């Protein structure tokens, strides 16, 4: 160091300070600046203060709606089960056949025979087939066809059909055959009924 001039010695002594300053401005500061720039970029994407609350409120409303749907689904499922049970429960068929004979008889029709129908006959129109498919699609059993042969007047037939409608059990007339002799008021009636 003694070989150096006075100015050089001062410059040499100041070198560590210059190095420290250079480290700061050329290495440490740029790194921090880059981090700050990245953070500021992220901050510029900050949502409005109310946005989160609005979104979460919407979500809460949607969940409430979903809960409401759940209740509707439960209600519908119960109603469907009940409806299908009304329409297709085999256990009710015996009850239905008895109620049906009663309804027909109580309005002047003389029931001659009632039984499970054989295959064939007038039952099976496109609309009926569609209904049967719909029932099966809903999980119900295919309806059973019951036939009932009886005698009576037009009026008694109409009243009997009204009575069938009023039954608490499912009984649906799906086909009819009637004949009448001229000069005689009685009709020979055959009904095909889904039970």
């Amino acid at each position, binding site marked *: 160091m*003694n070989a150096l001039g006075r100015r050089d010695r*001062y410059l040499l*002594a100041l*070198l*560590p*300070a*210059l190095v*420290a*300053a250079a480290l*700061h401005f050329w290495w440490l*500061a740029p790194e*921090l600046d880059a*981090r*700050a720039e*990245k*953070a500021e970029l*992220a*901050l510029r*994407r*900050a*949502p409005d203060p109310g*946005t*989160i609350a609005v*979104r*979460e409120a*919407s*979500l809460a409303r*949607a969940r409430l*709606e*979903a809960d409401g*749907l759940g209740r509707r*689904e439960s209600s*519908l499922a119960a*109603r469907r089960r009940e409806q299908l049970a009304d*329409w297709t429960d085999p256990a009710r068929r015996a009850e239905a056949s008895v109620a049906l004979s009663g309804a027909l008889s109580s309005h002047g029709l003389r029931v001659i025979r009632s039984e499970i129908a054989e295959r064939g006959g*007038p*039952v*099976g*129109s*496109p*609309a*009926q087939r569609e*209904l049967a498919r*719909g*029932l099966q*699609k*809903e999980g119900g059993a295919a309806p059973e066809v019951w036939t009932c042969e009886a005698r009576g007047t*037009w009026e008694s037939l*109409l009243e009997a*059909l*009204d009575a069938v409608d009023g039954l608490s059990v499912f009984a*649906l*007339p*799906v086909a*009819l*055959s*009637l*004949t*009448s002799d*001229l000069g005689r008021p009685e009709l020979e009636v055959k009904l095909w009924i889904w039970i």
Partner: protein
Amino acid sequence: MARSAGFSLIVVGRRHSRRFDFASSRAEGEVTPHEIAASGVAADDVANLAALGPMPRRATVLLDSAWIQTVELPAAAVRGLGIEDLRRAVAFELEGLSGLSSATSEVAVGEEIPGSAGKVRWVAVEVHDETAAGIRSALGERGCGAVTIGHPASLSLASEERIPFVEVHERVTIARDPDRGAVVVIPARPGQRSWRGSVERFVSETDARPIRWQGIVPSGEVEDLAAAFRDEGGLPMELDPVGTARRWARDLSAAGERLPLVGPPRAARRSPGPLAIGIVATAIAIGAVGFLHVRRRREVEDLEARAVTVSADLRRIASAERALAVLRRETNDREQTIRDAEKSLETIAAGFETQRAGMRRLLRGMARLRVAGVAVTSLESRPDGAVEIEGLGATTAAIDAYVSALSGDARLGWEIRPPRCEARPRGDGREIQLYSFRAVPTSKGAVDDGETR
């Protein structure tokens, strides 16, 4: 090389300049002498001597060429002055005597000595500031920072001995009588008339005997005068350089600040060296850089923390939006499923109702219709859902009227197809018409007359 704990005594003379390195702070320790021929420029001699070997941190330079004299000031004028103010006052006083400006010289004031009535007296040494700066620079470059400058003649003033002495140097002679408290500085070369007169006057005024002769070897014109003294001052510098140096070193260490020695200028004394400046500057730079860095890092960390919060908020929003979209889709699907299921049930129920009401509407319509000459003999459901109706009619016109009336019944809900008629003979020779037609359920349904149930 490690620096010595000792000090250097440098004596710059008219013919020779010498350097004495004392190994320790004690004058009795090992001494290393160096000698060079004087160049006539004190600073150069000091620089040359300093280059002969490593310099200790402390040195005293004695200049034969320094100006030395006693000076008196009114006691009232200097009472209470600090050492710096006193030096300044003395420097002004000396301007007329030494010819050196107080602005371009450095003055040292020694111990106060008795003066004339109402005055105070000192021995003062004055050195041109360029000379002092050159000496300090030369030594400073060699790592010697604590430098004092004086005149060799002043050192004897520190002696505690009560013996009067006359110390002769090449340019000045100093005489002291401890009993009288008298100090005389004779600014003349030995042998000059004024010198001789001054010395003789001092000797005559001094009662005590013996008077010691010190300094240069008496020779020539001064030899006879010197012979009058009993020489007890030891060998002079020319004959015993080391011994003289030891004596002066002892005087220096004993006298301390009582001697008129020019120390480092106050500003220079405070001026830090490159190393100190470097350390301080580095410390300041590191401190400033550290402060800036820490502050900036805190700012950045704060920004990053806020950015993390924002990112989390954005993720929450995105998550809520995704969940909302999924929920909406599921809800829509479920609603559709529910609607489908409800519709399916409704369709089935409506189908049942259509089935139930259709037959009754047809039968009621037929029962309501009274057309003379037309009777229904059979009604037969067909597998395609249609109903085949047969009967007898008196005439085709009556049959057409019947079918037309049935077809025009808006409450019926059935489409009545045109009848087929076939004439059959009756037993009475007339004919009767057998007819048949189909009733097909319409998709439009019927106008509800309230009687279908």
